[in-house]
């Protein structure tokens, strides 16, 4: 633990446009990134720092993108950041009301074998729309921590910050076999299914 306290981990925030990445980024780092209600607000990257439990994280807010096949120059920045920070951890931000398209990007990121953690944002909006997303179930299937958040009120952000250290690489074939209902691979799941912060997975 102690020897880790000096080196910084880079966290890239990746997600579809307008899912609340910048709002979450501001909450995590106290920065002042622009937050607006239209896709394509962020067109360049911004870095900020989060110190949590004696660990320092450099968090980078990047433009939103629908996939790793960029459509415009802003999306290109997001993909470039992923390519440039090969040793980074990725914080995948999903909009709980638009989960399918978010998962597409999440899978593309997972396939790169990067350590990931998922923030399931806009839970308040999902609740209003009567959309119920089972975060624990999602975590069990994906094999990476999934934390429900509401960036505008700050709900879940503390928990998210606390869980960043548990980020881990997802395994697509394991996801597939879990979906097929096969017996889960206990080793890679250890300490993660239904995680309440025991710390066993790292």
């Amino acid at each position, binding site marked *: 633990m102690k020897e880790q306290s000096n080196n910084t981990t880079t966290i890239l925030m990746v997600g579809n446009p307008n899912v609340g990445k910048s709002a979450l980024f501001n909450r995590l780092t106290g920065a002042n990134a622009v937050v607006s209600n239209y896709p394509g607000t962020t067109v360049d990257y911004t870095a900020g720092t989060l110190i949590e439990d004696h660990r320092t994280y450099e968090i980078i807010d990047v433009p939103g993108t629908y*996939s790793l096949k960029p459509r415009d120059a802003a999306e290109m920045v997001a993909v470039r950041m992923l390519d440039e920070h090969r040793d980074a951890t990725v914080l995948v931000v999903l909009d709980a009301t638009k989960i399918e398209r978010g998962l597409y990007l999440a899978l593309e990121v997972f396939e790169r074998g990067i350590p990931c953690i998922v923030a399931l944002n806009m839970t308040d909006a999902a609740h209003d729309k009567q959309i119920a997303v089972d975060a624990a179930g999602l975590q069990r299937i994906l094999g990476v921590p999934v934390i429900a958040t509401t960036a505008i009120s700050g709900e879940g952000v503390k928990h998210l910050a606390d869980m960043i250290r548990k980020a881990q690489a997802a395994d697509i074939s394991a996801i597939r076999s879990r979906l097929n209902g096969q017996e889960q691979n206990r080793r890679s799941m250890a300490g993660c299914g239904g995680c309440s912060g025991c710390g066993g997975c790292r």
Partner: protein
Amino acid sequence: MQKKVSDLEYGESGIVREILASQHDLSCLGIRRNKHLKMITRQPIKGPVVVIVDEMEVAMGIEIAAQVVVEIA
């Protein structure tokens, strides 16, 4: 009956059957085969078409809309 999204009447809806172009971009916005799609409005003079899929609103140019085929009940 099958219709292109560009030919849908206001408020008409159907199930997406075929996407002939821009498939990747459209599916990333939620427009995929077997999804229920409802046309909200179309702007005059070949302007964009606005549709709702899964309670999400998407606006697309008329030529893209002409590449999406829906089955009307």
